[in-house]
């Protein structure tokens, strides 16, 4: 059973072009992804593909000029604003992407304590700090006094003390030393094994493959493939989508071939398959319409030629 289900999500921003024209940038379109209890879903994709926005959309903290459509369900029930208000921070927790998400004028210890639900907040905070090798003096520091890695560990701590059922972690690992990465990732694993769920947003496919169960691949604001980790082996024969294949081949330990071209900007999306301009397998058919997400060999793919 899916604990969290995102279906057909679109997010767009209103803005003005140089003249007096008002336009809508669609930065996420018809995106669907589901999170099962007891599993870690890794979300990978290029910078700007909409990963952070998905996380923010789930928690209902998109900026006010964003408009959103589609459905987000938590435990099979629509996640309305009212329902979200009671769940945020209690059952759903976010590990945000950067240090800017810490209040610059509040000691980090207090910030972690405010995230704790019930029980002894102080000892909960100290325990989790110890776990992430944050010294006792850290709790009295202000965010500007933290190194990048310390800040990330603090952000992780806020989610860990909350006792949430679902953690959405937005690139929690860059800048951490391998020991801490391992600690954090095994934390997530342990967390999932206890029947909770983790959405792990990351650039780092390799470490994602080590701990995740499934991988969702984002391209230009939508999912192009959802595959089991097991499919990422050898030359990537089991992988369904051309973009995912290209990503796999681009890894240093594989063929290390970069993908030519770049992801289209939300203001100039192709009318057909979003990947068509860069796809080796593209045919005129691909430019007709955006392919639907379809099931294929126990996974999902958005490509008409995938087999």
């Amino acid at each position, binding site marked *: 059973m899916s604990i969290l289900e995102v279906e057909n999500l679109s997010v767009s921003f209103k*803005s*003005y072009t140089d003249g*007096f*024209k*008002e336009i809508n940038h669609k930065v996420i379109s018809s995106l669907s992804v589901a999170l099962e209890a007891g599993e870690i879903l890794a979300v990978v994709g290029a910078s700007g593909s909409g990963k952070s926005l998905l996380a923010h959309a789930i928690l209902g903290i998109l900026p006010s000029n964003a408009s959103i459509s589609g459905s987000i369900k938590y435990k099979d029930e629509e996640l309305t604003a009212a329902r979200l208000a009671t769940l945020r921070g209690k059952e759903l927790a976010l590990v945000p992407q950067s240090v800017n998400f810490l209040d610059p004028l509040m000691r980090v210890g207090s910030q972690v304590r405010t995230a704790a639900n019930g029980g002894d907040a102080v000892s909960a905070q100290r325990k989790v700090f110890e776990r992430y090798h944050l010294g006792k003096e850290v709790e009295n520091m202000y965010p500007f006094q933290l190194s990048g890695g310390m800040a990330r560990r603090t952000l992780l701590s806020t989610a860990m003390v909350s006792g949430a059922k679902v953690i959405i972690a937005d690139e929690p690992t860059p800048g951490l030393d391998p020991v801490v990465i391992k600690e954090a990732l095994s934390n997530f694993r342990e967390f999932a094994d206890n029947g909770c769920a983790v959405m792990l947003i990351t650039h780092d496919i390799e470490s994602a493959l080590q701990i995740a169960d499934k991988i969702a691949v984002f391209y230009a604001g939508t999912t192009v493939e959802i595959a089991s980790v097991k499919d990422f082996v050898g030359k990537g024969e089991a992988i369904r989508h051309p973009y995912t294949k290209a990503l796999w081949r681009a890894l240093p330990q594989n063929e290390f071939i970069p993908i030519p071209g770049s992801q289209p900007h939300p203001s100039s999306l192709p009318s057909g398959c979003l990947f068509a301009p860069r796809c080796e397998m593209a045919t005129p058919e691909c430019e007709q319409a955006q392919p639907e997400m379809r099931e294929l060999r126990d996974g999902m793919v958005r490509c008409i030629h995938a087999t």
Partner: protein
Amino acid sequence: MIKKFPLNRKQRTLVKIIISIIFLVTVILGGVLLDEDKIVTNLSERNSAPSLEHLFGTDWLGRDMFTRTVMGLSLSIGVGLIGAIGSASIALLLGMAAATMGKMADRIISWVIDLFLSVPHLVTLILIAFTLGGGFKGIVIGLTLTHWPSLARVIRAEVMQIRSAEFVQVSQKMGKSRWWIAVHHILPHIVPQLLIGFMLLFPHVILHEAAVTFLGLGLSPHEPAIGIILSESMKYLSSGMWWLAFFPGLCLLIVVRTFDQIGENLRVLMDPTRNHD
């Protein structure tokens, strides 16, 4: 309601600006074209309260207050225009100089800016008015000299930012002269800032002119200035002639507010960071 106005926010802002400008032009023309006969002494209609014939009432000499007010506003806008143009020119010159003529010039100019910000504006104005013996010249020079610092800072920052931009660096490498760069790259970028700054200066200039004149150190008592009208009205306050002070001040407020609105609306139109909201 939104259906009735099929304009988006930017277009609505533009319409607001145009309406405001039309209003101000009407006031200026009104001051120039209004019948001067209405403000000759007319002892048979002294001290009358507002009526249909005299919208703003009459004063102790039977002069029509509406006419006096419109003429005063027109004069205020005129003086404000001169002062604001002067201030904006100084700001442009010093702001550009600070940003382009090296560290020393920058230091000196920022020191001068601090100098002007160290003394309360009104005290500076009184001092200058005193030196020049009051009157039109004193007030205009005073207004010009006191209102440029903040705009100069804005322009300095803007120019610095453009200078470090890539396209300017490229032009520099291509051996384009300072002037070429200033005219082709820098000016077009600071014109919007200058325009907005200029519009936002205006209200301050007008209010300070009225204040100094009110204190007796500005325009001479023979001019039909709002400051004069209000300071004269003080003598008649206790006799209950509220209209002498009420309407002229209210109209000054509306004019100043209109300028301020134009400035703010221009900013909404031109500032790219406000494109969302």
